[in-house]
Every structure is written in C-alpha cells, then in structure tokens.
C-alpha cells in the first residue's frame, strides 16, 4: 500500500470528489520474527533513523518498536524550537546539518512539517549574558552560521511585545538573533517520517515494549524480547530518550545520563500576536505562538531524577513570572494545559550518537532538553553509523567513549536550560 502523493492536484481532486481519503498514513503490521535492524523508540529520532536506513542505505528490513504510541514521547511534548547557534564547532556542525535538512524536509518527506524560520531571539539581561551571547555570535560567524547582535531597540523592533520599560528586575540589554531559526510542527515530523519510512517497507510497531536484549555467546546482540514476542536482529539502535538508561541496563550498561522532568504549557488560543521565538536562559523562559494561536511556553527541569512525566508547579510558575515581566500584555491570558516529558541529560549537555561496548548495539540519546531541532540530522548520521558500523564524521565526536577519554563537548552555556 503506497500512500498517495500529497500535492495541490490531489488536494483539488479530493475537494471536488466524494468522501475524503482517510486511509492510514502508515502500515501497522504484526511484528515479524526477524529484521536486519531493530530501532527501539518511535520518536522523531528513531523514525528518522529508520527512514534514512531505508532511503539512503537500502536497508528495508527494519522494525521500529514503540512501547506507547508513535511520537508520544518527547517528540510530541516539546516546544519545537529549531536553531543551530551552538558554541562548540562540533555541535554547530551537527545542528547546522540538521537545520539545512529542515529547510527541505517537507519536500523530502512529501509531508508538511510546517517548518517556520521566523527567527529565534535569545535575550541578554546582564553583563555575563552579553559576553556569552557575543561569544556565541562570533564563534557561529566563524563557522559560517548566521547569528547577529541586536540592541534593545532592535530587539523590540523585531519582537514588538517585548517590554523595555525601566524598573525590571532583569532588564533586556540586547539579544542574539538567528533569523533562520524557528519552529516546526512536532507531530507532523513524527507522522511524516513514519509515513515515508513505512512506504519504503519499514515496520512500525506500536504498543510493543522492549523488555530484554538478547546476546549470543560472543556477547553480540542477537535480538530483543518484547511485550509482543521475541524479535531477532543483529543490529539494534536504542533511541529511547528519557528511558535510555533503562533500556541500556538490559544490556548491562550504565550510561552517563540522568533523567529529569521538563515542562511546557500552552495558553488559550489568541489571534497572531507573537512574531518570533524568544528565549531567555537567565530567567528561564521561552515562548512562541503556534499556528493554532496558543502561546507555547517552555519551563525548566525539576531538580531531581524522575520518570514521573509531570513537573513541580513552582517550576512552571517561575517561568510564568518571567514571561509576565518580559511581555506584560500576556498577564491576563489563561493557561490551558501543562505537561512534562522525561529528558535524558548528559554531563556535558551534548548528545551521544554512536557505537557501544556491546557489538551490534548502537545508541542515540542524551539530547536532553534540546533534541527536537536535531531530528533530521540525527536520524541521518545515526542511520549511517548503523549501516556502516562506523560513525559519520559529523557524529564521530559525539561518541559514548568521550566519557572515558575525557574529550567532552561542553555545551552547558547553550543547552543547560530547557529548549
């Protein structure tokens, strides 16, 4: 069953002919007995990996196993900020690779992921912020990545709701702007990759939790046990975000990860009032407006390790305090929903994408509070790693081994806050 191609023509044809085509966008097969590659976790990163395995490497006997529903993890819970202005050369290369793929992703997948490069503006509130943001701007420019400094007046011109009135506890002293940054529709990213991967033969199997990882006598992986039976595979890719430590423990590995709840909330929908994305690391707030009209607001993580998938109310109210000071016009807006996701945080705040000490076992994790933006690039380099057995040059620095040899990629300044 090949899905029909979305185009203006199909849209017009369907508008004028009988009932709409509501057929499923991807197949839901029963798990097969064996695959060349099993991916654990059907979030954006896992689905993108499966898509690239099939599309670029011709590996089509691939299963993506998901314990819940597709995109129900952090992919469907995040605030969708996309940008590439990271400090370290390795990270800038990784996130810029992804940003370039975002630009053509709707066409590549034939699915509208609603990527909207509306500009991401990061605020400076003190001398230290100015130094840090300017250092990022200079580093990015040297790497050929757009990032520019705005005076407070220029920041207000770019984002008129911004409050520059005197008397603020944390006044706006300037901002770094990446114009190519923006947002995308999180669900559409998961659905678009699922549809495209499924059409290439990838089996996406939901409600299928991996409960054990099987090894042969040599110690290499030979398959997985799941709540829907055993599945054989010589290559396994773990892409389980907040649950990575739990899955890797099935293979006897202790990971350099801690899992924390991270929260977001949305307001009641209003007419378009907010033109861009604004982030403030210092006072812990970031905000954009969705196409539905809701203000999408990201808060911080709880202080302690937890899998509760909620977060403390004081964390969210702290963020709302900051939002109300920065944008007084939102003070009387009502909040509709809040929720949490479990993010897997590494000591250097950079992801891990590569091989593990267990032959045949690969891992893509540690994206913490900020991996949505990397989804397309992460899937592509991880697929390369699994297909060839060696990392792509872009993900080579992001090895698990860096926590043994000490070659950390310290992005704490860029990514220690939630985004």
């Amino acid at each position: 069953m090949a899905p029909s191609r979305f185009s203006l023509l199909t849209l017009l044809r369907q508008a004028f002919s009988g009932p709409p085509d509501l057929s499923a966008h991807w197949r839901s097969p029963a798990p097969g007995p064996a695959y060349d590659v099993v991916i654990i976790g059907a979030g954006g990163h896992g689905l993108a990996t499966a898509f690239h395995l099939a599309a670029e490497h011709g590996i089509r006997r691939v299963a993506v196993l998901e314990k819940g529903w597709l995109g129900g993890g952090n992919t469907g819970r995040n605030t969708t900020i996309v940008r590439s202005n990271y400090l370290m050369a390795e990270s800038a290369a990784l996130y810029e690779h992804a940003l370039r793929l975002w630009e053509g992703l709707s066409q590549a997948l034939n699915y509208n992921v609603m990527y909207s490069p509306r500009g991401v503006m990061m605020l400076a509130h003190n001398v230290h912020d100015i130094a840090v943001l300017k250092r990022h701007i200079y580093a990015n420019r040297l790497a050929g990545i757009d990032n520019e400094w705005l005076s407070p007046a220029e920041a207000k011109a770019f984002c008129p709701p911004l409050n520059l009135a005197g008397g603020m506890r944390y006044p706006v002293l300037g901002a770094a702007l990446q114009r190519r940054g923006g947002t995308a529709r999180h669900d559409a990213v998961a659905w678009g990759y699922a549809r495209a991967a499924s059409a290439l033969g990838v089996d996406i199997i939901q409600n299928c939790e991996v409960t054990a990882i099987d090894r042969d006598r040599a110690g290499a992986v030979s398959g997985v046990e799941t709540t829907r039976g055993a599945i054989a595979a010589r290559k396994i890719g773990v892409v389980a975000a907040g649950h990575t430590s739990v899955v890797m423990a099935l293979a006897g590995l202790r990971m350099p990860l801690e899992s924390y709840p991270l929260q977001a909330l949305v307001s009641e929908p209003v007419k378009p009032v907010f033109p861009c994305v604004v982030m403030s690391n210092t006072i812990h707030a970031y905000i954009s407006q969705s196409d539905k009209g809701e203000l999408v607001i990201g808060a911080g993580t709880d202080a302690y390790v937890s899998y509760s998938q909620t977060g403390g109310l004081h964390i969210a109210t702290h963020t709302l305090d900051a939002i109300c000071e920065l944008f007084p016009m939102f003070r009387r807006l009502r909040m509709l929903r809040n929720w949490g996701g479990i993010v897997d945080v590494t000591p250097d705040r950079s992801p891990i994408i590569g091989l593990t000490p267990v032959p045949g076992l690969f891992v893509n994790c540690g994206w913490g509070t900020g991996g949505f933006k990397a989804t397309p690039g992460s899937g592509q380099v991880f697929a390369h790693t699994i297909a060839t057995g060696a990392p792509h040059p872009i993900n080579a620095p992001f090895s698990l081994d860096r926590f043994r040899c000490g070659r950390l990629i310290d992005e704490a300044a860029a990514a220690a806050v939630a985004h």
Partner: protein
Amino acid sequence: MLLIPCPYCGPRPEIEFSYGGEAHLARPRDPAACDDAAWGDFLYARTNPKGIHAERWRHAHGCGRFFNALRHTVSDQFLITYRIGAPRPEIAA
C-alpha cells in the same frame, strides 16, 4: 512541589532543599591507579533507575545538613531517609 522529610527538621517544602544526585558513589582511594574506564565511570556513569533511587539531599535553607534518601522515581514518593555514611537500607519495592 515535593514535601521532603528532613530527618533533622521534619517535613519541609522542596524549595528549602538542594539535590545532591546519586548516593554511594565512592571516590576511588587512589585515582592515579584507576584506568580511564574506571575513572570515567566514577565521574559520569549513573544508575538513573526507573524505580527506587538512593540519593543525596541537603536541607540548604533549614538545618543545612546533608542526608540520604530512598525515593521512587515514578511516584516521587520518599520511602526512607538515612544518615550520610550509613549503608543503603534494604527496602522492598
């Protein structure tokens, strides 16, 4: 917000405390004798369990003292607190 039972002061709101991460990670006695793998493990590897977690807390805005606790990481419920230096209590899940 969690209500955290400080063993010295009783139950207090979470914002009075600071979190100290996983408990019982003993620094190797002779770091220079460790190979990279053992030292990297000590610095960075964490159990990060979905279940009972042994962890350190400090009642920073109260008595100021450190203590250990067993907490369930799904319900966030505190099961028991105990002194720094004491072994991890046996407790049924």
